[in-house]
């Protein structure tokens, strides 16, 4: 109780001291960064997952060959979820005498639950988002379909036994499969018309689906509840399986944010540790005095703890305000990414952040407080009497535990966490060793320089361990700053380049071999380079290593599904530029031996396939056996046509083959597509523009978010620099007073101090550039799977920034020290 009173009494004044300001700033920054990043990761994750869900037009889809029993939709309603029904089946559509095969998509009122349908008022015209579905008696038809039957908006189409009016051109529906097999152009129809059409009857191949969407937790609960109950004929699909591309983008956005969060947090932790050390150090005199006046150890530690907790609370308050402000600003920047109702973060971030701040304080400040407790009272008479240093095990153990606890909570990605902590620890250790070596080298130079430099360099050498620690602190801060400024740009750039502006935005499918030439010519006549065509052969996998694909055991269900469904095969002499060989060998360009097959890595993993296995296919009445020769990784972001299974040249000769192609068509060139589908009615054109735009949008916004959060990191880095400089300020004040008392001019003393900082800054700069290069390489290659080039700029900037930033911080620290009146300082009565 006495301790609390005492702690409170002196607290107001303590608040004004420099180290407390740094400590508060560090805690506040950590909390602010955590709140903002946590908020962002959460929201971006949800927003992106939602965009990914568009591909299903729902959060969950129950698909069946028979009508989905109404009990499931009733159950979904009980969970507070929205539902919609869809049916899809192939059917021939007529306009007068002309006819074409179409995928009829029949939907109920609420469709789509996620994403939006887009239509145009004329073929290949301007598209717009619509809310709702076609009225009864009307349909929205794909432009290709209209071209094939020679109809236009306003015309009537015969669908089964009824005639329906085309009220718009359907340009995009969220669940149009982007797997471009067997896609007949689609027709969107109101479920109210289906009965009259007479299309549903015995033997019709209808795929029924119940779409479900709503609150994420409710969806999960619903999913769990029905999973074991559902009959085998009903298959559940959720977002993870539905869109590799959108999911990749979401994943990377989260990784970038996590990276930023980790770094802000680590830097804040370093700043907390350093300022806590000084906080404790500055209190040593007071503690010694209180002990000499009869205070017990418990009393002094209680006072320090109460003050620390109070600081923590203030830090949390500041941080929460900053965090909320950042949230507000960021959610404005990202408003349309977060479109739609998202749960209010409420008090949760504050509670989490307070907890985190306390963990941070305890982990990094407690060792210093424990040391404070052991301050010998003798210090009141002998100023050099110091408490024993806290045990290394305690310091390292506590801080690592705190970091692990915090990072795990905020990042939740164990692998990334380990790589980063590992990287940073290695750099710190390396920095320390090199720092010590450098300090030793610097000492040698001092006979050859002027008095100011000699004084500065002598200082660096004399402080030995402390100088090395400062080099580590500066170096670490700089490493992170470099990593975030230069490397972040490089990484984002690399990431953007994977989605270069030339990525195809249209796919042509179902091109017949005899059409290749005329289609190519049509494009060239319209000023578009003739596209590359990729062959496609539909097949069924029958055996794997002689065992039936039906009976075989698979590592997971995806593998079974992959092996049992109809497969799209292709062949090529040269591997696509969007592929990367992971294992095995690619066949020579002139290969004409027995069939070989190259498979995609996930397919190999899910189906439990490896090099040397043989796959048997049944194609158009013939059996083909191919040996797995290689495993590839596909860069899906390339939007190039890609295949899980690619065979060697000649293997599929004589098989019924169609061709597909991905190509970039500018908006003003789009009208040629009408000519294309009129001249080649069997070809389908799929517009990927909307999806591409979606993915680009995610990337752009995520990078804005990362940059915004980066502000926290930068501030935390500066807090570290300040804490490091501050930790030597008393000593500097005393030394400079002494030198001036000995007759040194203020300028000389000042130059000496600056020389010292310049040397430290240079050392830190060199080390940081090296560290950032290595870390960047690891992060780029290991985590983001992007190529990375070492950049000389890192070194130039690292060195310059090292000297510059350290000298500036040093200037502010040294200014006060150099200007103190020598007599006060030497008497120990200053302040």
């Amino acid at each position: 109780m006495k301790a609390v009173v005492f702690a409170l009494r002196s607290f107001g004044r303590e608040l004004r001291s420099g180290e407390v300001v740094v400590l508060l700033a560090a805690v506040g920054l950590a909390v602010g960064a955590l709140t903002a990043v946590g908020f962002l990761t959460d929201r971006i994750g949800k927003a992106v997952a939602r965009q990914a869900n568009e591909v299903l037009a729902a959060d969950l889809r129950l698909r069946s060959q028979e009508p989905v029993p109404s009990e499931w939709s009733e159950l979904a309603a009980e969970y507070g979820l929205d539902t919609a029904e869809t049916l899809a089946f192939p059917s021939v559509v007529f306009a007068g005498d002309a006819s074409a095969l179409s995928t009829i998509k029949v939907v109920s009122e609420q469709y789509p639950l996620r994403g939006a349908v887009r239509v145009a008022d004329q073929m290949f015209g301007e598209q717009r988002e619509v809310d709702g579905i076609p009225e009864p008696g009307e349909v929205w038809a794909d432009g290709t379909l209209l071209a094939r039957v020679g109809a236009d908006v306003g015309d009537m189409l015969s669908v089964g036994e009824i005639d329906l009016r085309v009220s718009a051109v359907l340009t995009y529906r969220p669940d149009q499969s982007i797997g471009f097999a067997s896609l007949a152009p689609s027709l969107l129809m109101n479920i109210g018309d289906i009965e009259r059409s007479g299309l549903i009857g015995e033997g019709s191949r209808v795929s029924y689906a119940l779409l479900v969407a709503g609150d994420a937790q409710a969806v999960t609960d619903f999913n769990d509840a029905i999973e074991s109950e559902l009959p085998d004929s009903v298959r559940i699909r959720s977002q993870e399986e539905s869109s590799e591309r959108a999911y990749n983008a979401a994943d990377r956005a989260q990784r970038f944010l996590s990276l930023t969060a980790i770094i802000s947090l680590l830097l804040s932790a370093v700043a907390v540790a350093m300022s806590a050390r000084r906080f404790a150090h500055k209190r040593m005199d007071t503690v010694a005095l209180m002990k000499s006046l009869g205070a017990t150890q418990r009393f002094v530690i209680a006072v320090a703890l109460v003050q620390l907790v109070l600081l923590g609370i203030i830090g949390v308050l500041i941080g929460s305000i900053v965090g909320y402000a950042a949230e507000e600003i960021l959610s404005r920047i990202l408003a349309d990414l977060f479109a739609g109702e998202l749960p209010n973060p409420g008090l949760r971030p504050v509670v989490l952040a307070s907890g985190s701040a306390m963990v941070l304080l305890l982990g990094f400040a407690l060792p210093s407080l424990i040391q404070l407790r052991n301050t010998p009272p003798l210090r009141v008479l002998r100023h050099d009497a110091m408490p024993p240093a806290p045990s290394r095990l305690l310091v390292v153990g506590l801080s690592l535990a705190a970091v692990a606890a915090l990072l795990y909570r905020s990042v939740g990605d164990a692998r990334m966490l380990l790589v980063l902590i590992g990287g940073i620890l290695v750099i710190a250790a390396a920095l320390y060793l090199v720092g010590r070596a450098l300090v030793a080298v610097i000492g040698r130079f001092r006979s050859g320089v002027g008095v100011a430099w000699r004084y500065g360099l002598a200082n660096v050498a004399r402080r030995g361990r402390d100088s090395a620690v400062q080099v580590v602190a500066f170096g670490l801060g700089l490493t992170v700053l470099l990593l975030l400024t230069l490397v972040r740009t490089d990484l984002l750039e690399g990431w953007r380049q994977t989605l270069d502006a030339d990525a195809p935005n249209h796919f042509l499918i179902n091109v017949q071999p005899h059409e290749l030439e005329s289609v190519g010519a049509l494009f060239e006549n319209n000023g578009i380079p003739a596209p590359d065509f990729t062959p496609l052969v539909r097949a069924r996998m029958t055996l794997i290593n002689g065992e039936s694909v039906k009976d075989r055991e698979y590592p997971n269900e995806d593998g079974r599904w992959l092996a049992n469904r109809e497969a799209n095969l292709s062949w090529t002499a040269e591997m696509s530029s969007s592929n990367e060989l992971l294992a095995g060998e690619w066949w020579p360009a002139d290969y004409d031996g027995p069939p070989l097959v190259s498979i995609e890595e996930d397919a190999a993993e899910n189906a439990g396939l490896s090099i040397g296995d043989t796959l048997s296919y049944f194609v158009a009445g013939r059996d083909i056996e191919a040996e797995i020769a290689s495993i590839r990784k596909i860069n899906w972001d390339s939007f190039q046509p890609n295949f899980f299974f690619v065979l060697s040249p000649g293997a599929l000769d004589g098989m019924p083959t169609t061709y597909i192609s991905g190509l970039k068509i500018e908006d003003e060139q789009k009208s040629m597509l009408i000519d294309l589908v009129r001249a080649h009615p069997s070809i389908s054109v799929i517009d990927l523009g909307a999806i591409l735009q979606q993915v680009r949008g995610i990337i752009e916004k995520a990078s804005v978010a990362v940059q915004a959060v980066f502000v926290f990191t930068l501030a935390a880095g500066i807090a570290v620099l300040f804490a490091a400089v501050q930790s030597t300020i008393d000593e500097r004040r005393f030394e400079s007073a002494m030198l001036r008392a000995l007759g040194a001019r203020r300028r000389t003393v000042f130059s000496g101090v600056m020389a010292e900082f310049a040397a430290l800054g240079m050392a830190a700069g060199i080390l940081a550039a090296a560290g950032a290069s290595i870390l960047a390489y690891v992060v780029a290659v290991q985590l983001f799977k992007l190529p990375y080039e070492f950049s000389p700029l890192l070194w130039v900037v690292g060195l310059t920034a090292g000297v510059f930033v350290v000298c500036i911080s040093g200037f502010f620290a040294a200014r006060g020290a150099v200007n103190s009146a020598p007599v006060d300082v030497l008497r120990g009565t200053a302040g």
Partner: protein
Amino acid sequence: MRNQSAVNDVVLEAHELGKEVSSPEGSLTILSGVSFRIAAGASVAVVGPSGAGKSTLLALLAGLDLPTRGHVVLNGVNLSDLDEDGRAGVRADSVGFVFQSFHLVPSLNALENVMLPLELAGHKDARKAAREIIEKVGLGDRWSHFPAQLSGGEKQRVAIARAFAAEPAVLFADEPTGNLDSRTGANIMELMFELNRSSSTTLVLVTHDNGLAERCNRILSLDAGRLQSDSEAAA
């Protein structure tokens, strides 16, 4: 319990005190074979050249540090028998300090500094008692000032007020005028002697100043860690 020893009212007793510290050049003897007894209410000056071991002796007598040889009995308690908190308890009850460089807590104002030992000793009305003593040292109108706002002499007055506030059995002063000009120093010493007379406090004063030493009842003279002379002065 107070140990009633042979000589009545002995408040402080040094028994064959020795202090050795280890240094890079081997062990160093700072103090050896120092013994004396100090009667309650006495004023004792410890004199000797710089480095003689005066401060070290003071630290041992007050239980700020432990001797490597011998022991100290303060107010009837053998300090070597106590742990650090135990010795702190003894100081809270029976010791006051005045230091060369004042040692006020910079974040507390003058009054709060004076209240500190009172509160540590569990005094019931610390504020009132502190106000009274701060009045006595002539700083009644400046009690709310912080150390940074006070001159050296004023700081030392606050320190003296703090030292006498809890009415300690023994007051230790280590060169209390060392950081003050001679006029201010003389005023400060006047104040100290006055308070010493008006209370029953025993004063142990480390000083260079022979004039000051002569105003004490007794002078212990230390050189190279040994007691050279122990003379009763006629006061």
